[in-house]
């Protein structure tokens, strides 16, 4: 199982990829108008977290598996969040026939 034939895989590369994902996710959350789009962007951010955790787990504490355990719980939480979120979106859609955040604005901040 040699993946790194020429290039030595370092911790930093994985962290950088995670940072890219996190940045893209942040951008998406801030700009998109569709609620589901926002949810997708948040999933990207959570995936960045997962890469971080597992990379740290492999490089820093390979025998204790702490990062991997953390990752499992992050996945659990992500799943339940998506479930709840879609329920909320569905029940909002039933009444307003829209899922655009800019149009959901009865309450004015």
């Amino acid at each position: 199982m040699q993946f790194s034939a020429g290039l030595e895989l370092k911790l930093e590369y994985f962290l950088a990829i995670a940072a890219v994902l996190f940045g893209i996710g942040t951008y998406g959350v801030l700009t998109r108008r569709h609620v589901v789009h926002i949810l997708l962007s948040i999933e990207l951010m959570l995936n960045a977290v997962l890469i971080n955790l597992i990379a740290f787990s492999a490089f820093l504490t390979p025998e204790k598996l702490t990062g991997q355990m953390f990752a499992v719980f992050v996945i659990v939480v992500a799943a339940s969040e998506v479930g709840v979120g879609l329920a909320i979106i569905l029940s909002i859609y039933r009444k307003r026939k829209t899922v655009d955040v800019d149009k959901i604005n009865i309450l004015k901040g």
Partner: protein
Amino acid sequence: MVITAKHILHSSFYLIASLLCVAMFFIMLRAEYLAAVQILVYIGSIVVLIIFALMLTRTKVGDETNISNNQKIFAAFTAMILFVCLTIVFFNINLEVKVESISKVSIVSVKQFAEVLFSAYTLPFEIASLLLLAALVGSVVLAMKEKTEENNDNKKFTK
């Protein structure tokens, strides 16, 4: 791509692609069980759930012209700052790396994984079950179709 695709269904397919890539990273990082979990839970359920929701809310088919709001510049700025800071920091700081190369890390077997999960992390595991139950019950309550007539509901509950 997930966030730039005009059509939301496309962007969820792009999400599947990026999740698969993340699963590849997990395999590279010797976390094969988690890679499987990633594929099963994320792609198998989360994305499918999202696509279901899209179908249920009958999002307009076809390209939406204006998918983003007017914070683009600010958002891009924030995201760039975050990314640049993080990357600079990652490449400049010596984390206490115990393993120099990933090829030296041994693959985690499912058995090992379970042993750790059910010895040291029992309590969070139990809480996670409560969390899932609460989320399940809550989503059912929220997504349930409401009959405006009271008596219809009563029939269902008091059999």
